[in-house]
């Protein structure tokens, strides 16, 4: 069966090819967005420092017996739950962005191929090249649609996300978690110096106390390192999202792709520190 004249077939072929070329120019490469959001998701998941904060009163109990610790333990347990919920909002968002920018979200090439194969079997007279072009067009337009959705979400999320990352969450970690660890460090020094200066201790006991003091201070330093690393994570996530926001209409911009890959690398370095501390 022949449904089209030769002229019409040529016209269709040329039109389809032009549309494909146009659509391809609108398509964005979301690999960098996906890579950055996936790494951000992984990095923000390391929320052990919230547990460290919640457990501080229990650790400080060994240096000083006070009724205030039990009150604080109860208060901090609730606070840790709230902080983890806030952090999970950030990780959930990164997860949604990763899914939205994933190839699998619009991987319909198999469905499109099935469709074009079936049209081909109908013997409509449309050339194989045209059908191939139609198939590519389908996938290309879906990719362009996907990029538009990523841009919309990034546009909507930027203000609240930056308010969390650069605002109170950062302040809590930078000021309160650091202050907390600083208090612990002073307690450790005071406790062991007090024991050492009290006298009536053997040389061996003094050495043992010095070693314990050193070990506790090292633990404290590692916790401080984790705080510094997590702050860098928040800063890199904030920086990356701001860049995404500013370039959301040109997600395939070379400088953006380069910046996002570089930020993902820096995030991986901080993940390494967080897993070791």
């Amino acid at each position, binding site marked *: 069966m022949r449904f089209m004249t030769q002229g019409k077939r040529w016209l269709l072929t040329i039109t389809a090819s032009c549309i494909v070329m146009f659509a391809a120019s609108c398509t964005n490469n979301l690999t960098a967005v996906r890579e950055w959001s996936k790494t951000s998701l992984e990095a923000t998941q390391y929320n052990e420092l919230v547990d460290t904060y919640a457990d501080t009163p229990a650790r400080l109990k060994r240096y000083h017996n006070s009724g205030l610790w039990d009150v604080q333990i109860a208060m901090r347990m609730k*606070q840790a739950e709230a902080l983890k919920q806030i952090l999970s909002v950030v990780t959930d968002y990164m997860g949604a962005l990763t899914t939205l920018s994933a190839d699998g*979200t619009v991987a319909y090439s198999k469905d499109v191929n099935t469709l074009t194969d079936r049209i081909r079997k109908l013997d409509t007279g449309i050339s194989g090249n045209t059908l191939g072009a139609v198939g590519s067009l389908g996938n290309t337009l879906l990719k362009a649609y996907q990029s538009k959705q990523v841009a919309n979400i990034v546009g909507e999320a930027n203000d609240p996300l930056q308010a969390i990352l650069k*605002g109170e969450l950062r302040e809590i970690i930078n000021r309160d978690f650091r202050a907390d660890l600083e208090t612990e460090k002073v307690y450790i020094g005071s406790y062991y110096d007090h024991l050492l200066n009290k006298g009536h201790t053997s040389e061996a006991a003094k050495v043992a106390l010095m070693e314990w003091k050193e070990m506790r201070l090292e633990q404290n330093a590692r916790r401080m390192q984790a705080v510094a690393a997590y702050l860098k994570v928040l800063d890199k996530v904030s920086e990356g999202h701001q860049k995404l926001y500013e370039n959301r209409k040109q997600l395939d911009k070379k400088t953006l792709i380069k910046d996002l890959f570089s930020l993902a690398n820096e995030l991986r370095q901080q993940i390494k520190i967080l897993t070791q501390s």
Partner: protein
Amino acid sequence: MTVTKDQAREIAEAFRKSAKVVIKYREDNFQKISPAEYELLHESSNTLLSVSSFITTVAVGLAIDAMENPATELKNVIGLAQEKIKKIQSVGRIIRCVSSLVDLASCIIAKDPAAIVTSVANLNKQMTEKA
């Protein structure tokens, strides 16, 4: 009297700094002061530190309250993103439906009754599939 989170942070720091001053004095002078005085200073610095820690807990509580609004806004955006993901996935569903339709058309053209029955069933499945 209500305290802001920043005032609480300043107070916590002031208590910690005071404790450090007391500890330094205690350690620098432990040979000059009596054991009772030494113990009193030790206990005082411990109290100052525990108050500092408690006020840090108060500051964190106030800061968490301040984060409630942006967290709720971001949660709404996540919901929006999930809808978009579903929408994109439904585009794939439309393609599959059209594909089934074309399949049915080819069976009609080929006058293949058995294949027509299968294609209709397949099309029906695609049309009624939940998003």
